[in-house]
């Protein structure tokens, strides 16, 4: 059977809308260097590397080859994984399995994106089937707007509920020096921001960012030597759905329900709202921060508005969600989901600075992307 694995180091860039001071390779080097420093290791200690991003955002083919200088992968085993928005957790999972396989002891996963280098929505639009759905139904905002308007109608959720979640995450970002958008925002500010696609407004939606994140995973024996408190991986679960947008269930989130259910089972969690201490969730839009709560099993179906309004998910609540500011604050797409894993790991390692939630023993980190796909990690302070 495989080995137990923990996170021993995390590094990320200071994310921004335009990092004109650094090329893509330099951004990667920045995150890698910081992760090595965080783990107090050198590149010689890294046995294998996994990298990921989305091809059409920078138009670089074979990124695992091109990134060599920044990645430090010359004469090392390296390969690339990519799955759209979930790329970051896909990288995390690949690095995790690479270590857990017993074939490599210390494995670094790197996600990155320079979204400023292209037209993000134009590139994303090409994910839809070119002979069926690319013309009528593509891009990121439309589908998210559609699913929330259905949820509003079904369960009485409001635009204000999403605005509460948007303000929560955006204000949390003030405590995170790496976050891209750091500004004090009120529910009124969100409600008054321009309507992008009803009911999604400008401040509900994630930005596109330049940034990179590196996370170092190590097998049990190594991890215990490298970190006083590794963040142990208790579960890594991915669930995919149908291939066409038209086939999907929009009123709830089947992939997330299935992925979290399996992850909780693996981690021995029966009441996630109570047993999890912190959550770093890939919520691309604040409407998801309402609607998807059902699918995380944080509440009964349709009860998300009540949960959000209660403040239970704020920093002083029972389950703080996105102390880092989450995706609405920072979104270098290929790194976004890996940042969730890195932030959750830091919460367990006690290295989350001003955004630290006290006494974190169990954390959840997720990725979202593709055709409504869900990736889930559960991390813990104790060995799994």
């Amino acid at each position, binding site marked *: 059977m495989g080995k137990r694995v923990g996170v021993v180091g995390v590094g990320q860039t200071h994310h921004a809308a335009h*990092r*004109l*001071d*650094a*090329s*893509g*390779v*330099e951004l990667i*080097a920045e995150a890698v260097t910081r992760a090595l420093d965080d783990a107090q290791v*050198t*590149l010689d200690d890294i046995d294998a590397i996994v990298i990921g991003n989305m091809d*059409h955002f*920078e*138009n670089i083919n074979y990124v695992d080859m091109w990134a*060599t*200088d*920044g990645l*430090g992968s*010359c*004469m090392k085993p390296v390969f690339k994984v990519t799955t759209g928005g979930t790329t970051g957790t896909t990288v995390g999972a690949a690095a995790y399995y690479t270590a857990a396989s017993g074939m490599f002891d210390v494995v670094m996963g790197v996600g990155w994106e*320079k979204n*400023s*280098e*292209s*037209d993000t929505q*134009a*590139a994303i639009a*090409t994910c839809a089937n*070119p*002979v069926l759905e690319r013309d009528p139904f593509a891009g990121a905002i439309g589908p998210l707007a559609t699913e929330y308007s259905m949820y509003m109608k079904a369960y009485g959720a409001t635009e204000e509920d999403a605005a509460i979640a948007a303000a929560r995450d955006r204000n949390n970002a003030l405590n995170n020096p790496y976050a891209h958008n750091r500004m004090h925002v009120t529910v009124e500010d969100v409600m008054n921001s321009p309507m992008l696609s009803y009911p999604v407004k400008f401040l509900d939606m994630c930005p596109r960012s330049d940034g990179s994140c590196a996370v170092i995973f190590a097998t049990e024996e190594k991890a215990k030597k490298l970190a006083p408190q590794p963040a142990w991986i208790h579960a890594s679960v991915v669930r995919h759905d149908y291939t066409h947008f038209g086939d999907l269930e929009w009123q709830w989130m089947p992939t997330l329900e299935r992925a979290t259910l399996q992850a909780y089972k693996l981690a021995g969690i029966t009441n996630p709202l109570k047993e999890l201490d912190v959550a770093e969730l890939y919520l691309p839009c604040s409407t998801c921060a309402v609607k998807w709560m059902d699918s995380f099993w944080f509440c009964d179906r349709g009860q998300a508005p009540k949960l959000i309004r209660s403040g239970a998910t704020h920093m002083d609540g029972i389950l703080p969600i996105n102390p880092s500011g989450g995706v609405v604050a920072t979104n270098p797409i290929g790194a976004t989901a890996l940042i969730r894993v890195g932030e959750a790991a830091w919460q367990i390692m006690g290295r989350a600075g001003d955004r630290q939630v006290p006494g974190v023993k169990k954390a959840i980190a997720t990725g979202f992307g593709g055709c409504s796909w869900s990736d889930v990690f559960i991390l813990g302070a104790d060995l799994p």
Partner: protein
Amino acid sequence: MAGWKDEVEEIVFPGKICVPYSWTVGSTLSKWYVQLRDDGEIWANRCPSCGRVYVPPKIKCIECYKDMNEWVKLPGTGTVETYTVVNYHEPSLHPKKPPFVYGVIKMDGADTGLVHLIDGVAPEKVKVGMRVKAVLAKERDGHITDIKHFKPIA
């Protein structure tokens, strides 16, 4: 599925992905290109740990992963390590019509080679080991083509 093509017309949609890109050049290569564009000079940088000299310059030594901060000016001459005479034409990619020559030029004063065009000589006369020097473009815009090509040293 076999035989379906006998029963229905095969339809093929033409398509093209048109996304504009703007690539950030970054600290190291920006410096290199400014030197090339404004001063007409080819520089390299040296690893403080192992001493390897790289052109184009590196952000980190690929062998040591050390930051590179020492710059050295190269004379712009070198030796052809390998070459190819290109005879096919890819109008959207190729900088000129075939036949033309690509080479890897091991630069004097550096430990690495530079991939570029070799011109100013009949393609069939190009040889491995040939001594060449950089010919700079008159109009330079801060790109690799600020070096127009390499030509043999007479």
